[in-house]
């Protein structure tokens, strides 16, 4: 934990700049997201709509459709990125993410089961189903691999195996119930385009709980950066800390999947970018990861509108296009150190 006093001042300046640039990009992202969509809207109308004056069609587009959609993209991006960061910390595995670790697949599977079994399947119910599935997915992975941090390879293999098992079951269910699950293929890649204020209201409490627990546990999570043996030596109940971490991951990833479907790769790539920019100090890394994740998904959602313009395409396509190559890059780069 040694510091370099000479560079300290510079480093602080850099961080300040980093956060302000990120905030600026987030604001720009929100603005372009609100400004451009299927209907043309002038800057003037945009300003009126944001300040909630005016009730014309154009104002309503922004107030009731584009705004919740953009906010939802930000929230989901935050959730996914933070969940990814936590899984990477808990497992000490750089290629860990809720997506690769059975949590997304488990949540998807149980939401699809719910959609097939109940015709009146509400959003709130789907969130609980997603939690259940996320727990199941995580449980499967950890029962296969154990929670000792000594076996990152086993964990990665178990995670991928469970991910594919659960995804194949989900797809099997969809094929067998093609009629009731018509557009679920669309849902399976994840999309925020239908987000409404109601959905934001539903997911916000979970964001609040997840982030609060995360912040409260921050000092303990810091020990996850250490070796397990050292942490135990320092008197930490490492298992308890890890379980709390998993709980937060399940809350964040589960509620995100239930609301918008599994949007892949955000949880994988954002923590890496954040870490390379903001460093390893959790009190900086955690908020920066959240902001960066939200920002990335806002931009991804914005660009996904133009894939099949003027019709919608799921944002998950875009995150997969960016995330796939990044995953391969990480696997190659870290492959040596892991093996």
């Amino acid at each position: 934990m040694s510091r370099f006093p000479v560079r300290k001042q510079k480093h602080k300046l850099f961080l300040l700049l980093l956060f302000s640039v990120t905030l600026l990009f987030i604001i720009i992202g929100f603005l372009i997201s609100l400004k451009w969509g299927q209907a043309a809207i002038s800057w003037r109308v945009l300003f009126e709509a944001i300040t909630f004056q005016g009730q014309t069609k154009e104002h309503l587009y922004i107030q009731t459709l584009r705004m919740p959609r953009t906010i939802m993209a930000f929230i989901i991006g935050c959730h996914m990125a933070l969940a990814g960061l936590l899984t990477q910390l808990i497992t000490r595995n750089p290629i860990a993410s809720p997506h690769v670790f059975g949590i997304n697949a488990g949540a998807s599977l149980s939401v699809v089961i719910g959609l097939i079994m109940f015709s009146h399947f509400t959003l709130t119910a789907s969130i609980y189903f997603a939690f259940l599935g996320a727990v199941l997915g995580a449980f499967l992975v950890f029962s296969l691999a154990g929670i000792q941090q000594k076996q990152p390879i086993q964990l990665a293999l178990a995670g991928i195996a469970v991910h594919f098992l659960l995804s194949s079951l989900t797809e099997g269910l969809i094929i067998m119930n093609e009629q009731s699950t018509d557009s679920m293929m669309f849902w399976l890649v994840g999309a925020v385009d239908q987000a409404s204020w109601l959905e934001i209201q539903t997911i916000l409490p979970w964001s609040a709980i997840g982030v609060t627990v995360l912040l409260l546990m921050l000092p303990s999570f810091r020990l996850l950066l250490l070796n397990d043996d050292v942490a135990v030596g320092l008197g930490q109940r490492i298992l308890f800390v890890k379980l709390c971490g998993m709980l937060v991951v399940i809350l964040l990833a589960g509620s995100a999947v239930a609301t918008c479907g599994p949007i892949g790769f955000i949880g994988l790539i954002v923590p890496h970018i954040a870490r390379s920019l903001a460093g390893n100090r959790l009190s900086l890394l955690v908020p920066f990861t959240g902001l960066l994740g939200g920002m990335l998904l806002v931009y991804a959602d914005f660009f996904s509108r133009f894939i099949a313009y003027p019709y919608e395409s799921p944002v998950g396509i875009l995150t997969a296009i960016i995330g796939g190559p990044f995953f391969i890059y990480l696997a190659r780069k870290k492959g040596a150190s892991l093996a």
Partner: protein
Amino acid sequence: MHQWIKRMLSFAVISALILSLIACGNSGKNEAKTEVQKNNKEEAIEIEHALGTTVLDKRPEKIVVLEFSYTDALMTLDVQPIGIADDDNPDLFMDDVKEKLNDYTSIGSRYEPNIEILSSLQPDLIIADLNHHKAIYDQLKGIAPTIVLDDHQADYNQMLDNYLLIAKAVGKEAEGKARLEEHKQKIEEAKQKLGDTDMTVLPAVTNPEGFFAHSDHSYTGSFLASIGFDDPVKSEDSYPELSLEQLVETNPQAIFLLPATENTIVDEWKKNPLWQGIDAVKTNKVFTVERRDWALSRGLISSEKMAEDIVENLGEK
């Protein structure tokens, strides 16, 4: 010891999961033998179809169809298929088709027909779809003479062409032509009752996740066009997903909703003031019709039902 317990536990959890899924997937098979009418006429039939030419030595008696529209076609020709890929759900047939349909064996999903059951029926004709069954064409050909039609993505006029091909394949070309004339007559009558058709009409399948417009390239869209209406969604894609914003911009003057589930996204949209701004909503021209009639059956019978629905809702009163 501990390791052993852990392994057994995870194995048990995974097996239980798989078993429960298999259990809820496989239900409602239609296992019934069918009497096939015997009506032998010894003449070869040659059919040109999407993947080549198939020669049938005699009029086929045991026919297996892999798409709903083929059942619709066979019903108009008084031919009973012995096997149908019905997605394991007989409720997907429209009532008029179901009434005429005898017992048959389900071949399972239209997307993944069960080849084993199919071959055990020993059919002498299989009618398949270009998009879904191209990959298994060789396999099907090995079981029985197979004709492949571009049907699932077909528009209305293509369906009429396909209909004549099917009629020819089952040795009822003359009956088919006559029935087609009758169909055109019925549609013409419907057109008369409609009067002015100068308006935009949008059919759309809805479910909880989205609003899927049937564009001018889709079957329903092209049917609406053939009777004079205008499908406001112009797209190469047959079923593009519309956001509420795009729907409001499209502003159709009438909407036919084909809900796939009980609750759909439209329930949410109705709460949004933008929904009230759509012309069709303002003039009370949003109608709900059966999806199996409009989007699944896709044949003469269903088109006539569509015409009926349209006349009932939009006809001159």
